[in-house]
């Protein structure tokens, strides 16, 4: 399993009713259903991902996340998860509001653009970074809102959201003290657990 998914696995409470935005082939939901008895749905637009979910018996709904979550009621879920999809949305900030309307807590992972390898790629080589977490060329990437660990933290603070956990995954420095100390530099994937603004 992808290392950001391993982290999420630890954070998801057993029996939670969850929504997985951009659920891909349903691997996370499948694992969480088997090991943590979660219920819920995955949202996806990729036809192959949708078929894969259906084949493995994971509930998947074809829905374009850029159109929001208006079809979901306030507080309908315990948790909303979005892995590696935020950066591909038109308005990540509005999606964050939507996620925390539908559930009190959300878990978000995205590629950290400030990861040292990405910086080196751009800073020394002078090319847009291409890596394991950013596998696309600049001209065909779906990632239209790349951000850094620090950027996202700042957005959460501006919105008054509570950051319950933050971690980094993947890369050479996973679990290493350098990544814990300097996540913005040594974390390839940013992983955040966010709660609604304090009343």
């Amino acid at each position, binding site marked *: 399993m992808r290392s950001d998914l391993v982290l999420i696995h630890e954070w998801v409470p057993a029996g939670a*009713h969850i929504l997985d935005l951009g659920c891909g082939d349903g691997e996370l939901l499948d694992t969480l259903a088997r090991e943590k008895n979660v*219920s819920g*749905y995955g949202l996806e637009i990729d*036809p192959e991902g*949708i*078929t*894969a*979910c*259906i*084949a*493995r*018996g*994971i*509930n*998947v*709904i*074809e*829905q374009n996340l850029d159109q929001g979550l208006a*079809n*979901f*009621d306030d507080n*309908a879920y315990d948790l909303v998860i979005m892995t590696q999809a935020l950066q591909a949305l038109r308005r990540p900030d509005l999606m964050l509001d939507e996620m925390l309307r539908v559930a009190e807590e959300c878990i978000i992972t995205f590629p950290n653009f400030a990861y040292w390898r990405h910086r080196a790629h751009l800073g020394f080589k002078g090319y847009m970074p291409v890596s394991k977490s950013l596998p696309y060329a600049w001209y065909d990437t779906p990632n239209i809102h790349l951000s850094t660990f620090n950027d996202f933290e700042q957005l959460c603070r501006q919105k008054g959201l509570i950051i319950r956990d933050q971690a980094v995954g993947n890369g050479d420095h996973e679990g290493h003290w350098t990544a814990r100390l300097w996540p913005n530099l040594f974390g390839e994937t940013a992983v955040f657990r966010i709660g609604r603004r304090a009343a």
Partner: protein
Amino acid sequence: MIVQDTTTLQSTDATMSGMPADSVGLVTPQKAHFDTPLPLACGRTLPSYDLVYETYGELNDDRSNAVLICHALSGHHHAAGYHHKDDRKPGWWDAHIGPGKSIDTNRFFVVSLNNLGGCHGSTGPCSIDPETGREWGPDFPMMTVTDWVHSQAKLADLLGIERFAAVVGGSLGGMQVMQWSLAYPERIANAVVIAATPKLSAQNIAFNEVARQAIRSDPEFHGGRYHEHGALPRRGLKLARMVGHITYLSEDAMGYKFGRDLREDNFHFGYDVEFQVESYLRYQGDTFSTSFDANTYLLMTKVLDYFDPAAVHGGDLATALEPACCPFLVISFSSDWRFPPSRSEELVDALMQAGKSVSYARIESPHGHDAFLLPEPRYQAVFSAFMERVARDLCLEASH
């Protein structure tokens, strides 16, 4: 008492008879007679009735591999295979039923029937009312989706099917699937609802009403007693079908198929057929008007209009869906404007609200509402993936 017709199903090896290898081959319809009266939603009771049906594939020993096919407005029991070696066309859903197809007859035992009120052999307006000895005609009791589902359950009883592995249907057929999940939740293991809607819109009902008025205002209609007058309301039925047909196709599909093409090079400045689309619609209408019964058409459109399981729950579909306990697969088509994706999404949202198991795919297709009848790679992939999961969960082995 239930009496089963003695006709046995003859399903031959398709390849032997020159039919496609993925066809169920030659099939023979069967007829089941039911003597137990069927109480209907309209308050009347059908004292006895026949249901005509076909089956494809083999029922396994524990009778767990049965799939029920529910037909749409002008559909019938002949969903797959051929009645005669020289049939030009196979059954109406042959694209999806057969060996290796989405509903794989190597694994599943498929049951497809003609609903009550139909005109293809099941008891309907063309049958004789046993009380009067006269053709039912317009006096045939009004049907509802609920009545159909009850009659289908009686057929399942007869066939020894306690629980369907899946109940599957498109359009009006999808409504029957929904009703199955509510009326007999313990008898349906999976539901596949394709190009359907939890209720008709005002526009849908309006189109149906135009179709009904076209039929009923035909001088040959004779208040529905046309057979007794040796007449047929062909013009009315033709018009009804023409209007219906427009709603089954998308604007793009019609544009692509016909555009503004003329039958001949120049305008004739008259009212005979000039554009290809006129020719097509007239042909469709003519064919239908001689092969379908007008009273059945009227009745089927009313069945559509009445369906609204949420109505008794103050319009709250999620509450109405509470009894359902099977996983659903819901499929819609992008260019369907009769029951557009938004109508399927209403159902999907309500199912999610009710916490039910549901997957939903919105298939890109230029073919409008008719897309549910046609083969399309992504549609087939989604449908097959779901049915394979159904087979896996039920531990069904392929028989060939």
